[in-house]
């Protein structure tokens, strides 16, 4: 049996030099105290980001036409949420893939969202003492699919305006849609839509913001806010913070991929970049087992710089 050759990356020579006591508890305590003092000091100096939350109420006041257009896209099924696929709905061919792997679709619909019903129709039905809205809802529900489709086709051709606190529509044969859109906009401006969409509208103390956030994300106003704060995906937004605060600098590599081809132009960017980062993470984990890469610390000799007193001897 031949003797195994010495591998400097794997094999260790037994230490025969002097030993020195090292108090790791003391070292850790000093580090904890210093870090705690730094946290308190920096918190007092800079506080933390304090941007006002974006709400449906704020949106409907700032840009009521964009709100109404988005509400209509929820009703006719052309919104981003309606065509998102899993986990919200089963829209065919909507999900991102990594080659043949449809990870998003495999997760299934575990947060079912039906934009027309959840964001518009069921929400308006919660309005008390509103005979006009109730009649419009009744007309919508009792009409045929063909009639609804024709109304939506006609309504899509007009552009609403907003003045004197109300939406105005050019004359159009759109059935109850103008009333529904005006009703939902008024509801949002009053602030009750935010509460109604929270946690499906059934839980007063809910912190489930899924539906209001999806609705917000479908409009142009919300993405405009993000772009102003450099938070959009093509602005390295993942590592940015509101205001002048430093953000998540450690996400630089993740957000970097979104800025360069082919990812910047890919409809599967999220899935592809996630897959790439998982591969890179696995490579990082297995660095000690990768010949050549594991030799880098030994060859660069940075450790000799840190322990220079020892190696000088």
């Amino acid at each position: 049996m031949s003797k195994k050759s010495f591998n400097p990356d794997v094999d260790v020579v037994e230490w025969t030099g002097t030993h020195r006591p090292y108090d790791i508890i003391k070292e850790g305590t000093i580090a904890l105290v210093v870090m705690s003092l730094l946290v308190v000091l920096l918190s007092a100096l800079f506080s933390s980001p304090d941007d006002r939350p974006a709400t449906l109420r704020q949106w409907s006041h700032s840009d009521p036409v964009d709100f109404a257009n988005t509400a209509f896209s929820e009703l006719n099924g052309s919104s981003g949420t309606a065509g998102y696929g899993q986990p919200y709905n089963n829209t065919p061919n909507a999900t991102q893939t990594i080659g043949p792997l449809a990870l998003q679709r495999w997760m299934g619909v575990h947060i079912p969202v039906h934009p027309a019903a959840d964001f518009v129709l069921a929400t308006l039905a919660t309005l008390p003492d509103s005979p006009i809205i109730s009649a419009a809802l009744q007309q919508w529900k009792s009409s045929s699919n063909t009639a609804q489709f024709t109304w939506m086709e006609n309504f899509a051709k007009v552009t609403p305006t907003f003045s004197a606190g109300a939406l105005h529509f050019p004359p159009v044969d759109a059935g109850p849609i103008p009333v529904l859109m005006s009703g939902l906009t008024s509801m949002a401006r009053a602030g009750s839509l935010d509460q109604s969409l929270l946690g499906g509208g059934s839980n007063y103390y809910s912190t489930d913001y899924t539906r209001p956030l999806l609705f917000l994300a479908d409009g142009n106003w919300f993405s405009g806010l993000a772009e102003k704060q450099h938070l959009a995906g093509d602005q390295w937004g993942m590592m940015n913070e509101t205001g002048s605060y430093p953000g998540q600098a450690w996400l630089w590599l993740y957000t970097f991929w979104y800025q360069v081809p082919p990812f910047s132009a890919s409809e599967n960017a999220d899935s592809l970049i996630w897959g790439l980062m998982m591969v890179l993470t696995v490579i990082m984990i297995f660095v000690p087992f990768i010949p050549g890469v594991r030799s880098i610390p030994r060859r660069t000799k940075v450790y000799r710089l840190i322990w220079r007193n020892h190696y000088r001897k």
Partner: protein
Amino acid sequence: MQPSHLAGVINLDHPGHYIHFHWLLISYGNAIVIGLMVATFVAVLFLPFPGSRLKDSHE
């Protein structure tokens, strides 16, 4: 922005400034933090360990 009772001494709740170079877009805040991290790394490479002179003399 709403003033807060818990606002810090230095208010950073105002629009940030960004360095834009070709495809690179980075906020001054992030650039400063990354610069401090690199400076800390270089410092620990070259600064002597606290008390290392004392310990070395006992060896």
